[in-house]
């Protein structure tokens, strides 16, 4: 047999030696060129561990960019739509960045390490854009993705696991706080962040030390029902948390071929992330014009009658006028609600009644169409007190 011209079709995360043997169902997905576990064995078990115990997710394929230098703060402020002046060292912020037309390129989290040092984390690769944004700025931008591994520990009992590791100082961490420890003779950052809308922490450290940390977390978590989770279970948790995902809930402007597919922060319902008062940032003029004109559509949460998940369903005002579509949907076992994230055209995004979802239901290979009434609902759908309680609640 001839050898393929490549060594491996997908890259392996620094934790591959730990995740692969546990991935009994051998269900993988692609994430930024990496093989990432989709489901270890059973999505439901993994999901319920997120809501009831503690879970580990290999976050290493996340792209991580170090931004440093005298203009670092000015640079980040130019890059993203929100204010970062108010972001103190030791804090993390969710942000989006836009193109010239004010359409969102991606979202991510910004970690402020010091007055002149940040780290930006995102699902997809953005080095070219970040470098272009740096023209005229005294700033250094470095892709440190390969050097830094990340593990997400999420679930009501995650603080117990942290404690078992002896990292008691995390007790005072509020959501979006971060702190630093020494781990095996190297630096480790722990942030109280996550994608589950639950209590949870993310660990960031040198790739070589990732396996050792994973082992210690798994060991410390034994007593708390810890279990590794794949992206499928995580996706259920994030829908309940009301988070949107690029390429799922909207087309990132850099990927869209049709110019009309780009979405502004206003259209994504992220108005609170746009700060017009901070001076110029990329897309500002276009966004200001949009604000005056009014957005054309909006991402909303939906409560849908019945219990049939409304995946990819079209939405109607009355029985026939198509006014939007569902982009993420699930029956939420925790909320006991049939929830969805959808995009609705204006002015239907503020309609209080008369919205219908057209759901196709597979009854053992027999398809039926159901029209279910729905209502616009506030996100997050699931918002337990433990998500933000500091110190963490006892579970």
């Amino acid at each position: 047999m001839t050898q393929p011209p490549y060594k491996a079709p997908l890259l392996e995360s620094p934790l591959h030696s730990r995740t692969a043997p546990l991935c009994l169902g051998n269900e993988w997905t692609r994430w930024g060129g990496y093989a990432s576990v989709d489901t270890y064995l059973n999505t439901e078990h993994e999901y319920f561990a997120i809501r009831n115990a503690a879970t580990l997710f290999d976050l290493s394929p996340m792209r991580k960019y170090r931004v440093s230098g005298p203009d670092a703060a000015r640079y980040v402020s130019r890059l993203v739509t929100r204010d970062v002046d108010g972001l103190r060292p030791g804090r993390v912020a969710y942000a989006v960045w836009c193109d010239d037309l004010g359409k969102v390129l991606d979202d991510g989290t910004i970690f402020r390490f010091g007055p002149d040092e940040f780290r930006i984390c995102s699902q997809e690769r953005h080095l070219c854009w970040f470098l272009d944004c740096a023209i005229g700025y005294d700033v250094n931008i470095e892709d440190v993705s390969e050097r830094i591994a990340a593990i997400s520990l999420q679930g009501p009992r995650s603080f117990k696991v942290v404690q078992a590791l002896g990292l008691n100082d995390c007790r005072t961490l509020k959501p979006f706080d971060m702190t630093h420890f020494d781990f095996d003779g190297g630096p480790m950052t722990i942030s109280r962040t996550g994608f589950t809308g639950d209590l949870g922490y993310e660990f960031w450290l040198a790739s070589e030390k990732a396996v050792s940390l994973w082992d210690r977390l798994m060991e410390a978590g034994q007593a708390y029902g810890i279990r590794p989770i794949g992206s499928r279970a995580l996706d259920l948790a994030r829908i309940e948390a009301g988070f949107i995902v690029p390429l799922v809930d909207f087309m990132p402007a850099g990927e869209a071929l049709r110019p009309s597919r780009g979405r502004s922060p206003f259209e994504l319902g992220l108005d609170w992330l746009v700060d017009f008062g901070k001076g110029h940032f990329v897309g500002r003029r276009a966004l200001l014009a949009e604000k005056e004109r009014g957005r054309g559509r909006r991402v909303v949460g939906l409560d849908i009658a019945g219990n049939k998940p409304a995946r990819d369903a079209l939405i109607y005002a009355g029985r026939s006028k198509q006014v939007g579509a569902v982009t993420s949907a699930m029956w939420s076992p925790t909320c006991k609600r049939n929830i969805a994230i959808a995009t609705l055209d204006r002015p239907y995004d503020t309609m209080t009644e008369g919205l219908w979802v057209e759901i196709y239901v597979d009854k053992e290979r027999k398809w039926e169409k159901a029209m279910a009434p729905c209502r616009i609902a506030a996100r997050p759908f699931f918002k337990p007190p433990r998500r933000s309680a500091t110190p963490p609640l006892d579970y």
Partner: protein
Amino acid sequence: MSAAFDVIVVGGGHNGLACAAYLAKAARRVLVLEAASDVGGAAANREIAPGFTVSACAHLLHSLHPKVIADLDLTRHGLSLSASDIPTVALDTGGKHVVLRRDQVMESLTAHSAADAAALPAFYRRFMSYAAVLQPFLTAVPPRLGGGGRQDRLTLIKLAWAVRKLGRQEMREFLRVIGMNVADILEEAFESDLVKGALALDGVLGTSFGPRSPGSVFTLLYRLAGEAGGLRGALAHPRGGMGSLTQALASAARASGAEIRCGAPVARILAEEDRTSGVELRSGERFAAPTVVSNADPRVTFLSLLGAEHLDTGFVRRVSNLRQRGLVAKLNLALDGLPSFAGLKEADMGGRLVIAPGIDYLERAFNHSKYGEYSEHPAVEITIPSIHDRSLAPEGKHVLSAVVQYAPYDLKRNWDDAREAFTDLAVETIAAYAPDLPRRILARQVVTPLDLERDYGMTGGHWHHGDLALDQLLMLRPVPGAAQYATPLPGLYLCGAGAHPGGGVMAAAGRNAARQVMAMEGVA
């Protein structure tokens, strides 16, 4: 900082001056700030030895827009021509030079090639009809791409109509040739290398093309779209050198009330609340005005003077990727008498003498520039303006002015080290046709592309402030988002060669920009 001016024009090149004059005429209070010690930019004079004055860079008029001359009454302000409709002489090493002047068939051409003599008038007529399509657009604001308004659509329709008017067959031919290279077109029409070389030069002069580069036909058409001394496609000498034209423009601007300050380099264009508020000089002195018009090239304007922080990233990327690599140097000589060009009639000495004996000669000369070298055998455009204009040199003496191409800005050697060797080479190249030239030189001066950047503020030493190529033209010039003179920053406008319709001493960019400012900005 209270605003004493409505408009500040950064740069007193011919476009900046024209823009200032139009605005002042429309009762705007205008201040022109020029970095150099005198106005003119690349359209200025230089005294290269006591009593010897020469056009420092640009030396021939072929495109100065007649509307500008009339609107600003430039004749009254001192503009005149010392010679008009001067011929182009294709210099031949064997002394059998061919004289060309628009569509006229001269004896020397018939003697050289009867076939080419027969082909010239039809070729010229056809190209002039194509040039006529472009001509109206020199003074129009280019349409916006996508989502434009009525005016934008109207301009596009006019362009389409102008092409359609050529007739079905000629329209097809126009669309065929427009993106072609000038070598292929000339090969189709002519047989003589000398003729093809001389005509091809107009397709590549001031560009970063060789005759076989696509788009060089367009540059040729662009040149033919201009006029001088009332004749399309003609060449003329401004009396007193190119500097006298910019002095006339300055005088017209001042007469309408504009204030002009030289030796006033602008360091920053200031913005407040997302709008221009004035400028700051390198000295720290500030001037306030709600509107700022920049005659500096787009890269300088956006990236150095304004700063990327006021602009979006896609726009900044487009500006930083503008192709703007100058390939032209200028040789200026003071002579103690007329050099003798072997075989050249005295009557033709006052013409434009070109060394471009063939397409291959030009293409080879171009090759060097791709690799950071200057041509071993450059193409040269020579004029001896003192033949027509005794004010330029002492009695019996002369000045010679020559554009030497290709001399790349990004020379592998340092230009300051290569200067003498390059000057020798340029002189020797001409001396191959006029052997007594070296003996007659009293003073010599070379303006390299690096000098153009340092002394004239032209990034990359580029003649047009950015290549005049198909992807950097009309609504793409200099880049989408700034192609209608207005820029993404409210209150900031472009008026120089980097804007539509580009460089050459045309003054159209300055005029069009002034009109756009008047349309968009109220009076304070």
